[in-house]
Each structure stands twice: as structure tokens, then as C-alpha cells.
């Protein structure tokens, strides 16, 4: 690790709550990770574990109310995004931080042309004239591999297929050459073949623009294929983080292990899939101790009483588990 360059993005003990109808839902409770320039960070976890809230928090787009940033810091290029004035934040959004969302069908405004939506972000941030912005938009559409971009620029989103729309979203997010791209499940709604195209494209663009990427997904396979580092979340917490190769070779947290065992493999027939009994605690459940304890076969009284801190097991490999590293003694 070089000392000179500070990480581009540092999330430190982020906690986000939702106040709904008198109850408090702790969607994210103390998430920390960091990301360096040019790297891709995968965020994985099951539905509802707080992945989207985390990524939206970086954009400071969690709806407030009902959302509330309860604690923590998100430092982008050294500045805390959570305390930045709104006007300053707006200058970052779409310019230095781009975001791609999960649903290509609904993430574009159906009543404006694709071009218009890209032009808008260009004119507002880079002060281009409309004509220039249009040129740039066509250029961007070309870059993301949309066929005949100069005519497609005037198409409405509904005239495009799902994969094409996601390409437009990517063009939109990359229009102002951001330093950081946040992709919240960018391929979940797509077919395998289209997913492969999009992941390929993203990899390509990343190496070309040098942007750092936060890739949110629930699919460990996608992470394995695309990310440098991984953060595994469970019920609003980060339970494990590691370089991708390390994580797959040597998963430490019982949840990570269970998750990996539950994936059917295309390349090897396992007799029976392993499962994690039980289910994720709902966000309103007030839990003492480790959130995974109720499903963990190794859970001890300590696990049920005290929340495990993130501990570094090896370089860059942290686990939040009292029992880690799990002894493999027979």
C-alpha cells in the first residue's frame, strides 16, 4: 500500500436509519470500507442487507425523510460528503461521481429522449452549449456501443431494449468523466448474454477512464469476475472484506462461507446445495451481538451478547466475527 495517495473514497462507520410509522429501521449500521483510484470494489449481500442504501448514501440521495444519516463519514477526495453543503454536493453528483441503477426500464425518464437526458447532465456541469453537448452525447453513446448513435440520440427510452437502455445509463453516468462510478446492480435485470456485454463494457471503460467503481450486486459470481476487492454485507453491516481472490480462496466469516456454498456451480456438479438455515433478521429487529448469531452454528454466548468488531486477519482481509479465523482443526 502506498502511503502517498489517500483513498478516493472512504466510508467510515456509516449508519443510516429510516423512520417509518414510529419505528426505526436501521438499514445500515456502521459500514466502513475504502476504495482507491482505478479500483473496483464489489459490495455483495442478500436482498435488504443495505447495499443500495450504502451506495445511495455516497451520492447523498437517501430520501430524507424517512431516511437519516445517523452517524459516520463518507470522505470523497478527503471531503466529507455528508456534511457538504447541498450546492457543493450537487456539483459532485453526475460530474465527479456517476451512478448507474439497477432497473434500466425505469431509471430513464420516459418522456425525454435519451440524448436530452445526457445533454442535460453535460450542460449543467461542463458548461457546454447544447450543440456541443449533443455532439458529446453522441460520442458517449458511441463509446458505450450503441449502434448508430447519431440517430439513436433522439430515441425515447421505450424505443430501446433493456441492454441498450443500460448502455445509455452508463453513457449518462460517464458523460462528465467521473472519478467514481457507483453501479447498483447494473446487470441484475438483464439476460446472461446482455449481462456479459455490459460487464465487459464496464471493465473496458474503467480501464480507459481510470474511474474507480463501486459495484453493488447480490451475485458473487459477478464479483468474482469483475472486482478487485469485495465487501460482504449482512443485515446492514459489513461482515467481511478482502481482495477478491483472497475472499474466494479463504473465506472467513461463516456467512460468507454459507453464501458461497449455496451457489450452484455451472462448472461442477455438487450433490446437494448447502444452505444457511433461518432467515435474515428484519431491519426493525433490535439485536444485541452478532447479527448472524441466530443462524451461525458456531455462535457462542459472546456472539449473542457482543457485536464483533472488524478485525484484520491478513493484509486487506477483515472479518467481523468473534470466532474468526475459524480453526480448521479436524
Amino acid at each position, binding site marked *: 500500500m502506498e502511503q502517498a495517495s489517500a483513498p478516493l473514497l472512504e466510508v467510515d462507520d456509516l449508519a443510516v436509519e429510516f423512520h417509518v410509522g414510529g419505528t426505526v429501521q436501521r438499514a445500515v449500521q456502521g459500514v466502513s470500507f475504502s476504495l482507491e483510484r482505478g479500483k473496483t470494489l464489489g459490495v455483495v449481500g442478500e436482498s435488504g442487507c443495505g447495499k443500495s442504501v450504502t451506495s445511495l448514501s455516497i451520492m447523498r440521495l437517501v430520501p430524507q425523510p424517512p431516511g437519516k444519516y445517523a452517524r459516520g463519514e463518507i470522505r470523497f477526495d478527503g471531503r466529507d460528503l455528508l456534511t457538504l453543503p447541498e450546492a457543493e454536493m450537487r456539483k459532485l453528483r453526475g460530474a465527479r461521481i456517476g451512478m448507474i441503477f439497477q432497473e434500466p426500464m425505469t431509471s430513464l425518464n420516459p418522456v425525454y429522449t435519451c440524448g436530452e437526458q445526457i445533454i442535460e447532465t453535460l450542460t449543467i456541469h461542463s458548461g457546454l452549449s447544447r450543440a456541443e453537448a449533443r455532439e458529446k452525447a453522441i460520442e458517449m453513446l458511441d463509446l458505450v456501443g450503441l449502434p448508430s448513435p447519431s440517430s439513436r440520440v433522439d430515441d425515447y427510452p421505450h424505443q430501446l431494449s433493456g441492454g441498450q437502455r443500460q448502455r445509455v445509463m452508463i453513457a449518462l453516468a460517464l458523460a462528465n468523466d467521473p472519478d467514481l462510478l457507483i453501479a447498483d446492480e447494473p446487470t441484475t435485470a438483464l439476460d446472461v448474454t446482455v449481462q456479459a456485454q455490459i460487464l465487459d463494457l464496464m471493465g473496458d471503460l474503467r480501464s480507459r477512464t481510470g474511474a474507480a467503481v463501486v459495484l453493488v450486486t447480490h451475485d458473487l459470481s459477478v464479483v468474482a469476475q469483475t472486482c478487485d476487492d469485495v465487501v460482504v454485507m449482512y443485515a446492514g453491516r459489513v461482515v467481511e472484506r478482502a481482495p477478491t481472490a483472497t475472499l474466494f480462496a479463504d473465506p472467513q466469516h461463516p456467512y460468507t462461507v454459507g453464501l458461497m456454498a449455496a451457489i450452484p456451480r455451472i462448472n461442477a456438479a455438487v450433490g446437494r446445495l448447502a444452505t444457511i438455515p*433461518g432467515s435474515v433478521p428484519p431491519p426493525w429487529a433490535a439485536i444485541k451481538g452478532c447479527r448472524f448469531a441466530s443462524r451461525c452454528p458456531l455462535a457462542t454466548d459472546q456472539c449473542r451478547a457482543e457485536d464483533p468488531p472488524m478485525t484484520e486477519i491478513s493484509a486487506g482481509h477483515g472479518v467481523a466475527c468473534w470466532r474468526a479465523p475459524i480453526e480448521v482443526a479436524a
Partner: protein
Amino acid sequence: MTDVEAPSWDAPAPVRPWWQRLLRDPIALIAAAVLAVIVFCAIAAPLISPHDPFASSRAVMKPPFWSDRSDPAHILGTDGQGRDMLSRLFYGTRLTLIIGVLSVGIGGVLGSLLGLLAAFRPKLDPWVMRLVDVMLSFPAILLGLALVAVVGPGATPVIIALAIATIPDSARIARSIAVSVMKQEYIEAGRALGLSSFALFHRYLLRNCVSTIMIFMSMRFGQIILIGAALSFLGLGARPPTAELGMMAAQGRDFLLFAPHIAVIPAVLTFVIVLAANILGDALRDVLDPRLRS
């Protein structure tokens, strides 16, 4: 079997029953209470009316109690014929509510059935929708006028007209809900089980649409009462000496400058009923069916 989910988090989400959520909304609660009182008064009209609502007296246009010229025998004063306002209000509310409930009920049921049928049997859909378009082209007031011309004025033609006017709207709303229900996979699941059309219609389609339709009708209720009042106002409503709120307001408008209470009290009561119904409808909708919000 294996893989039984541990029941650790099985405690269902703390979703309170709808009425409990309704109780948490103080404004809705007030509306419900007001409506309950009004409905009670309407039902109990013969028991609680201090006077015969049809009996005139020489004490005409007596002001309500807050005026110093008021007559203690008539708390809300008397109308232009010397009839007791309070008693007439009880009876008037009664008829107004009957008109509203019956026409929304009849029209809502017929319209909903039409709409549900259109969704259930897509072959019928274009026909039903054209029929609905034709009916929509007749504003309720026009329909009321035409009917009154046919059968003469009275509560019955008003109810019929308002019921007919309710049909197209409820058919549309029922259809739109039913179409989305019909797209749901559980309908296919039902069909895959070999359910009869009737069971499918009744247990799957109707059951899933009925609460939304009910909410729609409860919101419609207010508007229907207003149209009914307007019809009465135009002289097409209930026949004298029957009291009806719109008619009372209409009769009272001639005295607006001199004894405003005769027109204003029934008009305000109409307003209160419709307001309460609207608030309650809104609250019910919020609590029960977020789908209807648009």
C-alpha cells in the same frame, strides 16, 4: 423435511390491522366520529326530532339559538314555512344519505360488475368500454334532468340518475384494477388448479378487487351527494314536503339575505357530510390500498 427455516424472524412484520392504523390518524378519527353521529341522527330521526318536520307554524324564519331573537322551541330556528329546522335536518340528512348510499351502491355494484366482466372476459371488453364511453358522455345532471322529465321529480329518479352516472366511473376503476389483477400469476394458478369460471371470478378476481372498489365508492359517495344536492337545488329532487338537504338549501336561498340560516345550515351540513366522507375515504385509501392513489 430438511432446510426448515428456523422460526427466529418469523414473527410477521408489525403490520397493524387497517382499522388500527386508521385509529392512529386523528383527523380520520374525527371524520369517522362526525359521520357516525350524523348517520345515527339520520337513522334515529323519528325518535329524536323535537317537532314534526312537516308541520308548519306561524313562527317563520326564526333564527337559530345564537341569535337573541331565537325561539327556544326551535334550536336551529325555523324555515320559511315555520317548520323546525332541526327536525327537518334530521330527516333531510336521512334522505340525502339514502340517496347517496343507494345510488352509489346500485351504480357501484352494476358498474363494478361490468368492469370486472370486461377484464375477466377480454372479448367483452371493447363493448363494455364503448358503453361506458357513451354513458360518460352524459353528465349526471343531464341524466337526472332527462329522467325527471320522464318520470317526474322525486327521489327515485334522482337515485336512478345518480346510479347510472356512477356506473361508468366504477366500471372504469373496477376494470383497471381487475385488469391488473387478471395479469397476476395467481389467476393462472387458479386456472391451473381447474377452478370453475365462477370460482375464479368470485374467489380470485372479485375478492382482490372488492376493497379497492369499496374505497373508490366511499370516495365517490361525497361527489354523488353533491350532485344529488345540485339536482335538488335545480328543483328535480325529492318531492315536498319531504326534506332533503339540497332541497332545503335550495328553498332557503330565497331567504339568504334575511334568514341565511335556512340555506346555510343545510348547505354546511352537506359540506360536513361530504367532507367527512372524503377525509375518511382518503384515509381508508391510504391505509388499505395504495394502488388507488392515482
